[in-house]
């Protein structure tokens, strides 16, 4: 690759041809403020905050989308540049709802940081902030147009990464807003509630619906027996909010703080992840043996479920009937657990800590009350739990580690990897192989399905059958596979699909920022949990074996069918 020589603030630098000014500056440790730029996204050049002076150019140039050329002389800190950047941010602030103290992104806001970095001490322009109604029409996501800075990141992630396109730029000029078509609520458009828009929002314009107060309320109610489950991906990400590196495993601390907060029992969603593997693995084998609909697709990701219900209803029969681990947990908590510990299920409240915003909508689906009650009552995202911890005053850094409670406390490495893309597939194959062949699987690390790639494929010999599998994460990647199925070009047996890029570790409820680098670290954390487990195959989990003996009987049996399986329905894209 050819190099070009440039000068930045008087310093000679040699960089690869095609490098942007922004990247070149980063190389020599010059930080240029940006707002619309996001490391995982396409270049936009909308916000103009990153402008720099380039000798010979009559106008300032946006550094994010201007490639360097041989001999370019760049100034990043001239008076002209500083004043322009300040004025641009002032224009944004004049139109922004600056109620920082009550904003969900206070202290984690890119606009706040930039205002501070640029030394903005007043806004010269008239306040033109518009008080727009909040869109809290749905159970998962709230949009606050008064905070939106129109950077376009959410639009890109929604259309290009997720292939959904629920929100878009509407109107022109200063009336330009980012909103669903005809400014409908998100509930009236095919939003899958994945929350990826939240993860890329630089400010507090999109966030999860707050269920913290609902949870405090039941915790304060002494007549309630409040149990909580923690999803696999939360334990490797929540530490980021308390100064730990991404990927640090803080499982024991989470258990401990949840107990301090006042939950009566703290359980592990990994338990029902193991259970999912048993049910789903058997479902796959049943479909293969009995000529059922193939390829079978996983069903743990509620964003993905909404997606297939909206956009590919013709493939609903291909989706596993297994409930997600969250919902299996809820159903068991208010049946098996209630019976076993003689607690009136009416008084049991199930709370989930999830890396996910779509889970908030999943738990109120009409079908999700097989225990006779709403199986899961409240879902908190990882970020909401962080806020609860702050509110409770617990010092997570100093807190002792504790174990999950029985009977949903013993889990395997196979369940742990549910949190990363490819994990469900790997876990399922570990079990399916041994059920079919009766032999022990020697190398249980199926590395071909691991990693951050959008689509992964593998072929695994299981007895006489070569099991062909595919793994997709990010719904636009799912779309590629689904189109292949519809065109008859996909001869897979089993497909794992996760709505969010990277899987649950990149979920819409995870700490912000969560760019690719952070996701890779969380993923490493997930596989470290797996490695640290004595038991790494779901069917070897003694608590699962006990559950079948004591209560469920057999996989795909009558009780399983009632409590652990569900069905799906086509959704209309736009109500006419």
């Amino acid at each position, binding site marked *: 690759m050819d190099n070009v020589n440039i000068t930045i603030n008087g310093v000679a630098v040699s960089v690869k041809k095609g490098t942007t000014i922004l990247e070149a500056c980063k190389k020599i440790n010059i930080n240029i403020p940006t707002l619309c730029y996001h490391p995982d996204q396409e270049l936009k050049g909308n916000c103009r905050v990153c402008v720099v002076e380039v000798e010979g150019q009559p106008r*300032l140039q*946006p550094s994010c*989308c201007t490639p360097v050329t041989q001999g370019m002389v760049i100034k990043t800190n001239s008076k002209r540049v500083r004043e*322009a950047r300040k004025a641009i941010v002032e224009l944004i602030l004049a139109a922004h709802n600056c109620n920082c103290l009550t904003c969900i992104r206070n202290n984690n806001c890119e606009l706040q940081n930039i205002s501070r970095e640029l030394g903005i001490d007043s806004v010269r322009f008239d306040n033109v902030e518009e008080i727009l109604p909040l869109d809290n029409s749905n159970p998962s996501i709230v949009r606050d147009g008064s905070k939106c800075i129109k950077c376009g990141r959410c639009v890109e992630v929604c259309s290009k990464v997720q292939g959904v396109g629920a929100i878009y*730029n509407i109107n*022109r000029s*200063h009336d*330009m807003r980012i909103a669903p078509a005809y400014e409908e609520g998100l509930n009236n458009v095919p939003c899958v509630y994945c929350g990826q828009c939240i993860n890329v929002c630089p400010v507090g314009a999109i966030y999860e619906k707050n269920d913290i107060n609902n949870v405090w309320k039941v915790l304060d109610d002494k007549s309630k027996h409040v149990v909580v489950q923690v999803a696999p991906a939360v334990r490797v990400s929540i530490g980021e909010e308390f100064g730990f590196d991404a990927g640090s495993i803080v499982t024991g601390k989470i258990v401990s703080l949840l107990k301090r907060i006042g939950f009566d029992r703290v359980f592990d969603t990994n338990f029902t992840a193991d259970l999912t593997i048993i049910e789903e693995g058997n479902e796959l084998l049943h479909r293969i043996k009995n000529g059922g609909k193939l390829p079978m697709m996983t069903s743990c990701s509620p964003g993905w479920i909404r997606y297939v219900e909206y956009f590919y209803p013709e493939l609903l029969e291909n989706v596993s009937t297994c409930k997600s681990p969250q919902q299996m947990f809820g159903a068991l908590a208010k049946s098996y657990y209630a019976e076993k510990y003689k607690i009136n299920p009416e008084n049991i409240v199930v709370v989930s800590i999830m890396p996910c915003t779509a889970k908030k909508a999943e738990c109120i689906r009409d079908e999700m009350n097989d225990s006779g009650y709403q199986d899961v009552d409240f879902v908190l995202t990882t970020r909401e739990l962080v806020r609860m911890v702050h509110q409770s005053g617990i010092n997570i850094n100093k807190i002792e580690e504790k174990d999950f409670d029985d009977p949903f406390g013993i889990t395997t490495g196979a369940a742990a990897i549910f949190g990363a893309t490819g994990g469900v597939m790997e876990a399922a194959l570990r079990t399916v192989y041994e059920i079919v062949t009766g032999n022990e699987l020697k190398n249980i690390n199926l590395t071909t399905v691991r990693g951050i790639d959008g689509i992964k494929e593998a072929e695994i010999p299981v007895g006489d059958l070569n099991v062909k599998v595919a793994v997709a994460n990010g719904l636009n990647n799912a779309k590629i596979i689904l189109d292949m199925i519809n065109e008859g070009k996909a001869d897979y047996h089993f497909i794992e699909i996760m709505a969010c890029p990277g899987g649950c570790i990149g979920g819409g409820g995870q700490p912000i920022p969560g760019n690719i680098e952070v996701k890779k670290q969380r993923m490493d954390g997930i596989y470290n949990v797996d490695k640290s487990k004595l038991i790494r195959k779901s069917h070897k989990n003694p608590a699962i074996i006990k559950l079948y003996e004591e209560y469920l009987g057999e996989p795909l049996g009558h009780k399983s069918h009632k409590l652990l399986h569900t069905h799906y329905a086509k959704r209309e894209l736009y109500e006419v």
Partner: protein
Amino acid sequence: MILVSKLCGKISPLSLKDYKENGGFEALEKALFKMKTEQIIDEVRASNLKGRGGAAFPTGLKLQFVASEKSDIKYIICNADEGEPGTFKDKILLDGCPFQIIEGMIISALAVGASYGYIYIRGEYPQTKDLLKKAVNILKEEGFLGKNILGTDLCFDIEVRTGAGAYVCGEETALIESIEGNDGRSRFKPPYTANKGLWGKPTLVNNVETLINIPYIISLGSEEYKKFGTKSSSGTKLLSISGCVANKGVYEIEFGMTIREIINEICGGVETDKEIKFVQLGGSSGAVLPAEMLDIKIDFDELNKLGIGLGSGAMFVGDESICILDFVKTTMEFFKHESCGKCTPCREGNRHINKILNRIIEGKGSNRDLELLVDICELMKDTSLCGLGQSAPTALLTTMKYFEEEYKEHIEGFCRAGICNLKKGAVVYG
């Protein structure tokens, strides 16, 4: 001086016979049968033709950029989205002689190796659109468009498209977005359209008037063509002249005439008994010049030296009855309405400019407001994503420079023209 528009109004626009009897398609035949493609580009380069859409970019160079790109397909777009307020010269050409524009497109296609073309015409010209569609169909039937044009290897087809009325779609990248079916919002450059334009392919985007010049350059030869106009600006320019002149309309003039000559000799002077106060050159995005500057020549170099663009060639002549601030307010309302909203300086800047102008016009302005106006204007010029935001403040900036006193008078509570709801009269400074 009439060159490129000489057939307009003289022949039946859809009569191929008329067109051919008047030299139509001779240039195409010459280009096809007697010239190599490089020679066509060389001829256009040598002619010193500059883009007539507003940016005055050398057309030959643009042709060369697209020609040198390697690609399975290249496109040519005729930019007929004539949306600049006060500009109506392309319409005369489109209505008067559509074949000539298409001939310019075919010759350009031959030169750059393009196989498909679009004529993107503004939505507010529905009749012209129908006419162009008919013209394209006639040429398809007669073998001037489609496969193997005039029996040669040249294959080139044209489709007529319209926008929905957004001014910004006259900007080439927004225009391309619009053709692609997206919202009309400009792209950042680079990549330039010559490298990655429509559907990511090399694309030549030229204004109607630029294209109509090409058959003449090929027929006459660049030497002959350069005899028209001045050293830096060869050929002629169509001007759309409106305002207080006696004869308003579209005129084709030879480069080198002064504004005063145009007003007095071509337009028959001023129709009212008032003095000329200003001329806005280049449409709403153009500079507002005071009467003392009427002796400048219509010539790219000369205008450039003064930091003024000719733009699309619109000329609005205003007399003393007009209040400069009221006039600028109208202009700025236009840009506030037409900003696409994509980049911060243009989206937010335009609305603040309008707020401040309104405040001043209502007699509530301050000197600080004047400073703010300059700051916003300079910011927009310096940092906006596309030509719309960069040129939107031109009228405001030039009036603040040349008519500073009128701004000050408004701050003091006077409007000398008596248009604003303030005391009538002028404050005498000095």
